[in-house]
């Protein structure tokens, strides 16, 4: 994929994540910070499908943005064909692993498989 397209994805995921993370944080503040972290409150959040969907979207957006950012930093420090391939594939693998791990929590709590 062209680097210019990757940077457009990087910026797009950043802008979308800012909007959704703002909603996620406001949910904590409107409820009261400590109360919003209570077990029943967190379970209720996960069970509410639109909110669980939003968490899943945030997870995907931030994973893409975060690991692409890490890739950019690592490629700035050192260059080379093998190194660049290893960094790119490593970041994609880590991104997929994190999305899978986070999705597991969201899906299991939302569907009551716990």
């Amino acid at each position: 994929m062209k680097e210019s397209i990757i940077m457009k994805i990087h910026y797009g995921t950043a802008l979308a994540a800012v909007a959704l993370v703002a909603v996620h944080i406001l949910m904590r503040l409107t409820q009261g910070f400590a109360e919003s972290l209570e077990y029943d409150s967190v379970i209720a959040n996960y069970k509410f499908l639109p909110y669980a969907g939003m968490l899943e979207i945030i997870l995907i957006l931030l994973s893409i943005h975060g690991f692409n950012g890490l890739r950019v930093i690592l490629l700035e420090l050192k260059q080379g064909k093998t190194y660049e391939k290893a960094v790119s594939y490593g970041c994609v693998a880590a991104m997929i692993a994190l999305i899978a791990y986070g999705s597991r929590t969201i899906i299991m709590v939302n569907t009551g498989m716990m």
Partner: protein
Amino acid sequence: MTNQDEHKEGIRGMINPRRYGVERVAYLLMRLSGLGLLAYFIGHIYETSSILKGQVGWNEFLELTQTNAGHAILAIVIGMCVFHTVNGIRVMLGHGGVGVGKPARPDYPYTPASQNIRHKMGIYSAIILAAIAMMYGLAVMFGE
């Protein structure tokens, strides 16, 4: 005799914040805050997965994070998040050609048109907003 150029400082020279003004500081902070936020994000995903262990597991993990040290770390995360967001918007605008000035013939003293007062104000705004957000976060977390 070594082959290395004595003027080539490598990464140490690249990250020297004193040499290239506030733009280099912003460059450094952007990368440090990005790495910090990625580390926090991974930790947050791991932390929230403890809810699968039920109420006992959740409360045990919450006890670890809801401490003074935990709140201080969260305040730093808030600061990094706000700086990364505001400075990121500045960088995006700059890449889009907003606020970087018009192309002109490079004349002595070769001051880059893009490193102008508008972008410097953007960097300082990001730092100030991050500090305000950190203080607000601390007030919310310790105020309860």
